[in-house]
């Protein structure tokens, strides 16, 4: 079992004969991309992941789609299955080589692991060997599924177990604590349970600072080669008027779609646009991190039910000092300011959205950048239907397609059915 503060025990490329340099072998989840690592001396075989994957959809050499390659699942000298890309001819020395694809499969269901709870369980149980049962994360799994939260990304560096798990949580607006029932919870904005205790007395304090305020948030997502390929910017105009503009950038390397980035940004903004009282309370009640407490204390300016974010327990006195964060004021109206215009690189089909005069022009592209031509495109929420042209463009009247989040159902000429989320500003 690996302690939470210890590096995640990723295998190293030194396990193979033909390795180029000592590097951790990545684990990949959901729709993601990442560098290929040399596997054999002749430089025709490169490793993408330290496990079987659902598929590899594109190989990019020096920024251009590579032609002749195939995916293979092989067993290495230690008996471990790997996902390789095999080239007909070795790529030139010194070029950058990366692949886009779909990562690890659930060992029980065989499905692509995209629910954050499944990915975190795999990290804790199967990579770190901590014996975490899947059921321990079941509430978080349900909460993520209900919010339609999906992740994709890679573990390529042997950071600490805690740091990897918290990185996934931070990307989607969630918290992790080993003392927390269920380990993870969506925050801000998760569904809160009934209060375990009401705290009306005892030593208390409250602090609020301008440094915690953020009323203009940009969520960066769709990371490839350590750089974001997409972003959404949201603001809370009423709170900008009240406190001045307070911009903040949220890096969400595990978020792969604008839809999830929008959801994460909206939840964070609804919390952070408002002044956040950081409250400390002392109690002898048996409560843990993640439990909800009703705060109704004369020193504290806010009354309400809030989850415990931290706890320091003193066994001698039986007293716990709790940390709670409570926003002041009304939940803000959130406005989408801007969405990155580039297509989402990690979708198998991406959509660029532009408004031209009175039209919404949506350009559909495949993962390799070629247009999705002659496809039937319907906007699920609005019932609008159109056919894409040879350049992959479909046009809808702006008056029928207001700003908001929509899902395109795309049926290609080949009969493939694709689901493409878009945001209209």
């Amino acid at each position, binding site marked *: 079992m690996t302690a939470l503060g210890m590096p995640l025990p990723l295998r190293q490329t030194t396990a193979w004969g033909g390795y180029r340099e000592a590097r951790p072998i990545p684990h990949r989840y959901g729709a993601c991309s990442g560098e290929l690592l040399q596997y054999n001396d002749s430089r025709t075989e490169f490793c993408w992941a330290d496990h079987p994957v659902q598929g590899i959809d594109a190989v990019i050499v020096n920024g251009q789609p590579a032609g002749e390659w195939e995916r293979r699942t092989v067993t290495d000298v230690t008996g471990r299955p790997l996902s390789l890309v095999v080239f007909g001819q070795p790529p030139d020395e010194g070029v950058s080589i990366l692949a886009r694809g779909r990562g690890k499969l659930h060992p029980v269901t065989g499905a692509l692991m995209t629910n954050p709870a499944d990915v975190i369980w795999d990290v804790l149980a199967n990579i770190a060997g901590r014996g975490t049962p899947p059921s321990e994360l079941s509430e978080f799994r349900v909460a993520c599924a209900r919010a339609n939260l999906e992740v994709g990304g890679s573990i390529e560096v042997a950071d600490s177990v805690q740091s990897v798990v918290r990185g996934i949580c931070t990307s989607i607006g969630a918290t992790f604590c080993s003392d927390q029932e269920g380990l993870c919870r969506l925050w801000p904005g998760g569904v809160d349970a009934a209060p375990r205790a009401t705290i009306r007395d005892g030593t208390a304090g409250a602090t609020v600072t301008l440094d915690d*305020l953020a009323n203009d948030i940009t969520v960066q997502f769709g990371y490839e080669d350590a750089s974001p390929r997409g972003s959404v910017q949201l603001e809370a105009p009423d709170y900008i008027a009240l406190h001045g503009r307070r911009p903040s950038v949220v890096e969400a390397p595990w978020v792969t779609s604008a839809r999830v980035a929008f959801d994460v940004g909206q939840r964070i903004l609804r919390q952070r646009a408002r002044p956040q009282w950081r409250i400390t309370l002392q109690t002898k009640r048996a409560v843990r991190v993640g439990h909800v407490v009703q705060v109704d204390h004369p020193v504290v*300016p806010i009354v309400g039910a809030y989850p415990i974010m931290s706890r320091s327990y003193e066994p001698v006195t039986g007293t716990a000092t709790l940390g709670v964060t409570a926003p*002041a*004021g009304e939940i803000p109206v959130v406005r989408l300011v801007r969405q990155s215009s580039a297509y989402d690189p990690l979708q198998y089909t991406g959509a660029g959205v532009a408004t031209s005069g009175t039209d919404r022009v949506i350009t559909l592209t495949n993962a390799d950048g070629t247009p999705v031509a002659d496809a039937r495109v319907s906007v699920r929420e609005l019932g609008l239907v159109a056919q894409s042209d040879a350049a992959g463009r479909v046009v809808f009247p702006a008056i029928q397609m207001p700003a908001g989040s929509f899902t395109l159902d795309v049926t290609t000429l080949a009969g493939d059915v694709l689901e493409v989320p878009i945001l209209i500003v």
Partner: protein
Amino acid sequence: MIVLRIEGNPTRQFYGNASALADLEAGVARHELLVGVGPIHSGTENVDNRVSVQLRNRNNECTKLFALPPLGAKAQLVENGVTVFCGIVHDVSLDADVCVLNLTS
């Protein structure tokens, strides 16, 4: 006599004792809660000039006044009619005895 004035809706004036009443602006909310004002820090290498102000909170007066904290609001310290500090409210801390406001320029 020193007075803390925080702009907002409503604007509020905080003072220490009745001898400051003559320095207060009429028609603006006034609260006899000012306990102390720390040194006013300034210098060429400081990003912000800053000062800490203590208000009484023994009866939770500030808890009630600052339920919606005036973060970012313009704040001035006026001594005998002269402004000695002008900035914004950066943070507010409350406990059972005092409320501390840190102001920054």
